[in-house]
C-alpha cells in the first residue's frame, strides 16, 4: 500500500553515537520534511527537501544531516547524538500543490542515554 514509513520506530543509543532514521514514501511526493516533537514545543522543523538533491535547513538543524538521492527516501542522520536530541521524530511528505497538506509517518522515538 502507498504511504510513508519510518524506521526504526524505537531506538535507544548512547551519547556520541551516530544514528540514522529512515523515511520512505511511495506517493512520489516532491516535498519531504523532518520534524521533532518535544513536550511544550509542538513540532519543530529540522530539515526539508523540495526534490531529490535539494535540501534546506529548518528551525532546528544543528546536529543533524540529511540527504535525498532518491525522491522516495529522506534519511536523517545524527552524526554524534546528544541527550538533547532525545525526542520523537516525524517524517512527512507533500506534493506541494494547492493544499500543501502534509502527510506524516508514524514517528521514530529516539532515546539518547
Amino acid at each position, binding site marked *: 500500500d502507498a504511504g510513508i514509513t519510518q524506521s526504526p520506530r524505537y531506538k535507544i543509543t548512547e551519547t556520541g553515537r551516530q544514528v540514522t532514521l529512515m523515511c520512505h514514501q511511495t506517493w512520489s511526493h516532491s*516535498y519531504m*520534511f523532518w*520534524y521533532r516533537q518535544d513536550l*511544550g*514545543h*509542538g*513540532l*519543530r*522543523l529540522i530539515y*526539508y527537501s523540495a526534490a531529490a538533491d535539494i535540501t534546506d535547513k*529548518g*528551525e532546528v538543524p544543528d546536529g543533524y544531516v540529511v540527504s535525498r538521492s532518491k525522491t522516495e527516501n529522506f534519511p536523517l542522520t545524527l552524526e554524534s547524538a546528544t541527550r538533547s536530541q532525545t525526542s520523537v521524530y*516525524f517524517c512527512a511528505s*507533500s506534493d*506541494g*500543490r*494547492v*493544499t*500543501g*497538506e*502534509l*502527510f*506524516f*509517518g*508514524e*514517528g521514530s522515538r529516539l532515546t539518547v542515554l
Partner: protein
Amino acid sequence: ELKVEQNPLFLSMQEGKNYTIYCNYSTTSDRLYWYRQDPGKSLESLFVLLSNGAVKQEGRLMASLDTKARLSTLHITAAVHDLSATYFCAGSNTGTASKLTFGTGTRLQVTL
C-alpha cells in the same frame, strides 16, 4: 518568521459542552491547517483552510480562518469522549509550499 500560538494549551471539558480552540499567527500565512494527534500516534490532517473566511466542518468539529485578524478557530460542538486528543494548528509561510510552522498544541480531554 512565522510564529503560531494556540490557546488554551490544555482543555478539560464535559461531554455535551461546546468550546473553541484559538490559533493566532504572527505574519501573513496564506493557509492554515488543523491536525489531530492521539497519544503515541502520528498526526492526522483534519482541515485545510486556504482563504480568508474559509469554514470547514466535519462532524462535531468546525474550523474557520480570518486572515485579517490572523486567527483561526476550531470549534467543538457537543463534545464526546472520542474527541479527546491533542490538536495542532499550523501555518504556511507565503511562497514556501508545505513548509509548516506548528503551534504547541491543545490537549483536549473530554470527560463523562
